């Protein structure tokens, strides 16, 4: 019908039209496509962040971000509540940047934003910029994952009322139950404050294993020796009293200050643990520790 050249021109025209129509279709849907890609990438960032959280953060902040007593504060909802407090005090940066900065640079001191909670160590720096293991993109992913908790809305934390034993060594203690003391140690039951006892975050029960603090293996025997030691300056007369003093007033006597003092005369062991426990909790814990001969 047509000669070769005409057929070629017709073919080229059809193909060109198809190309132009395709580009037009891409153009019309480009906005949605970009939005879709962004949502998808954010979802992938959350997935990656979740893996990183499991690997690096969950040991101290809990698998669900609920916090681990003595190790790391709650993030869900703790970090969101803390940010609200900071904002009330005039902190001007965004929540995202607050979380990012805390992960990247860590904290210079132990977290103190809730007076009744105490932590053994300060948050380390995680960014490669500050000597940590994480790349900037990994920190971004982690932040996306943490922010995703906020989607569920912050849950208020209950604060039960109780009388704390504090740092008062004179208050008489009820008879202790070593069974309940062990359960407290293992965080199977909670202290009167509703917070799990944080002892095992720093003290191992294996002989010779020093975590942040010394091992508690054989503490009953050890306590009896300590009070007779020439350099002992505390007031304890019995092993029970020595253990009680160590919990309520950790700075009274510091064993091996080179290893276990945070500063001269200040133990690494927080001095506020007594604020979390009732007299019964303390008695039970002492009773349990006294079984470790």
């Amino acid at each position, binding site marked *: 019908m047509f000669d070769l050249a005409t057929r070629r021109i017709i073919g080229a025209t059809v193909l060109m039209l198809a190309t132009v129509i395709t580009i037009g279709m891409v153009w019309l849907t480009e906005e949605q496509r970009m939005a879709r890609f962004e949502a998808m990438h954010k979802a*992938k960032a959350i997935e990656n962040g*979740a893996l990183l959280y499991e690997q690096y953060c969950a040991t101290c902040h809990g698998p669900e971000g609920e916090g681990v007593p003595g190790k790391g504060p709650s993030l869900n909802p703790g970090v969101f509540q803390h940010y609200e407090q900071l904002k009330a005090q005039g902190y001007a940066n965004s929540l995202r940047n607050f979380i990012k900065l805390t992960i990247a640079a860590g904290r210079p001191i132990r977290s103190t934003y809730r007076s009744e909670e105490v932590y053994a160590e300060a948050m380390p720096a995680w960014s490669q910029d500050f000597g940590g293991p994480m790349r900037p993109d990994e920190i971004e992913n982690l932040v996306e994952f943490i922010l995703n908790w906020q989607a569920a809305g912050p849950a208020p934390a209950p604060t039960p009322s109780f009388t704390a034993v504090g740092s008062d060594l004179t208050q008489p203690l009820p008879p202790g139950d070593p069974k309940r003391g062990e359960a407290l140690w293992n965080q199977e039951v909670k202290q009167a404050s509703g917070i799990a006892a944080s002892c095992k975050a720093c003290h191992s029960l294996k002989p010779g294993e020093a975590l942040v603090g010394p091992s508690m293996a054989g503490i009953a025997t050890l306590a009896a020796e300590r009070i007779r030691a020439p350099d002992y300056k505390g007031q304890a007369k019995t092993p029970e009293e020595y253990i009680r003093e160590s919990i309520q007033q950790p700075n009274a006597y510091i064993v091996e200050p080179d290893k276990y003092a945070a500063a001269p005369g200040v133990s690494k062991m927080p001095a506020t643990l007594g604020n979390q426990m009732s007299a019964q909790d303390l008695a039970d814990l002492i009773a349990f520790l006294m079984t470790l001969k």
Partner: protein
Amino acid sequence: MALRWPEPIPTLQKEVRQYGWRRVIFMHLDELVTRVTAGIPLTEVRNIIRGEPPPRPNPRVKPHTEGFILHIKPSFYHEAVTRLYPTFRLGLLSFYLFLIETITGIFLMIFYTPSPLVAYENMLRILNNVPFGQLMRDIHRLGAEAMVVAVMLHMLRTFFTASYKRPRQFTWATGVLLLVFTLFLSFSGYLLPWDQLSYWAVTIGTSMAEATPPPALGRIVNLILRGAPDIGAAGLLRFYLLHVIFLPLLLFFVFFVHYYKVVRHGLSLPPEMEAVGDDTARKVPPEKRVPYIPDIAIQEALWGIALIAFLVIGSAFFFDAPLEQHADPLNTPLHTTAPWYFLWLQGLLKDPFLLALDRLGLPRPPATIYNSKTFMGVILPGLILLFLLIMPYLDFNISRRYRDRRKALVAGLVGVAAWTVLTYMGTPAFAVTSSADVEVLQEFMPLNPDPLYGEGRVRTIPYEQLVPGTYDTRNLQPPADAPKLAHVLEELKHRIEGDPHLPQGYALVRIREVQPGLKRFEIAIYWTKTKNGQPVLDPEGKPVIEESKRAIYLHRDSGHGGE
């Protein structure tokens, strides 16, 4: 003496008065067209469109003598080379692809910074914040793959039609260089997205550089190429500069040498059309001549438009350039491969020679005499390249006829077959096995898309069907409204129970919702530890059970479940 115009410049007004306005418009239009086309007047353009034969003298050859762009093109072709066979237009397509790569590449360069700190973020930005960004990237990537294919096929075609023979040996040698440059252009671009795929493919691809003998030189070559012992910021910058400046310039230069030689010797005719030993490409009888303008020009334009249509439509609907996770130098994906055109090298590095010795039960030669990586990764590919370069000068068979070239054709086919086999050997399907449990986990949920298993089967389950719970493959009771989950669990059960390396194997699958829209999917595989086919017993006499676990997280919007 003062310079003076010989006569007053005719003004438009005077012209109109003299010739009438219609004629004046035509005159000026004619002049414009003649200038733009470098010599074809308007009336002749009309004749071309009407398909009329050219007058004598032929004004349609003027652009070839007057114009810059067409002076390199022949003004007529032999009718025998204007059909699909023998050229298949592969050289033309390669050149078109180079132009398309340049244009799309410059577009992508606008949004790209060659630094590991931001390169990956730039890629995300191109995909989520640059209109046509994804289309341009897809075209660039598809075009790159197509260019490698086109250049390779072009070389094979030239070999099989014996077009490399006298006097075109040098043209062939420059063509081999162009193939090498094309491969390295594509390879250097591979690294730039800075994702896991690119990082590890290039790590593998450059790993043979270090094997360059002697060892001192190998270290230097590696440092020059990567900028450091491993690929990092310096390596990325080097690859970027290779990709956007050095290799394109080199390729452009060698291309013109190549094309000049092609035109100088004429496009070689199909072998059966000329007497043995003759080369009549330049002696085209007048009745066999097909003029470039308009016939060949239309044909070339058609090929160009068809190519663009293929790339645009292909990229818009069928092809997405891959982008995996951010590059992680500390986390090597299980099955890492070089780009497909270098898989044959990866196959060579698995060393068929040593594998054959093992199969025959013969001892391996000592490493001091035979260094596998040096020989298979550097010396042998170097010899192959050298052979390709000088091959036409070693071929003393003057006949281009297929029936006179049986040995050469068989050798060519054997070469293609060897390349194919080596390419297969380079894939993770060949002679790469990790432990059985890791293979299962990789098959069902790889941490990065796997060359063999893709995204893995777990990622084919839609989010709603990830019903939280614990599933035991020994006693499967998946929820009724999750057919895809049930299917994948069934597959997992068969996969583990059918694996001879996992005796009495079973899996526990735990699905848990960790956040709104985010679920954790864990597979834990258990099997009985065996030694020499007998179960290993613990001190209490019970069989020892081994465990292997992996968990991934799946978000509602991350595009799994076939969306």
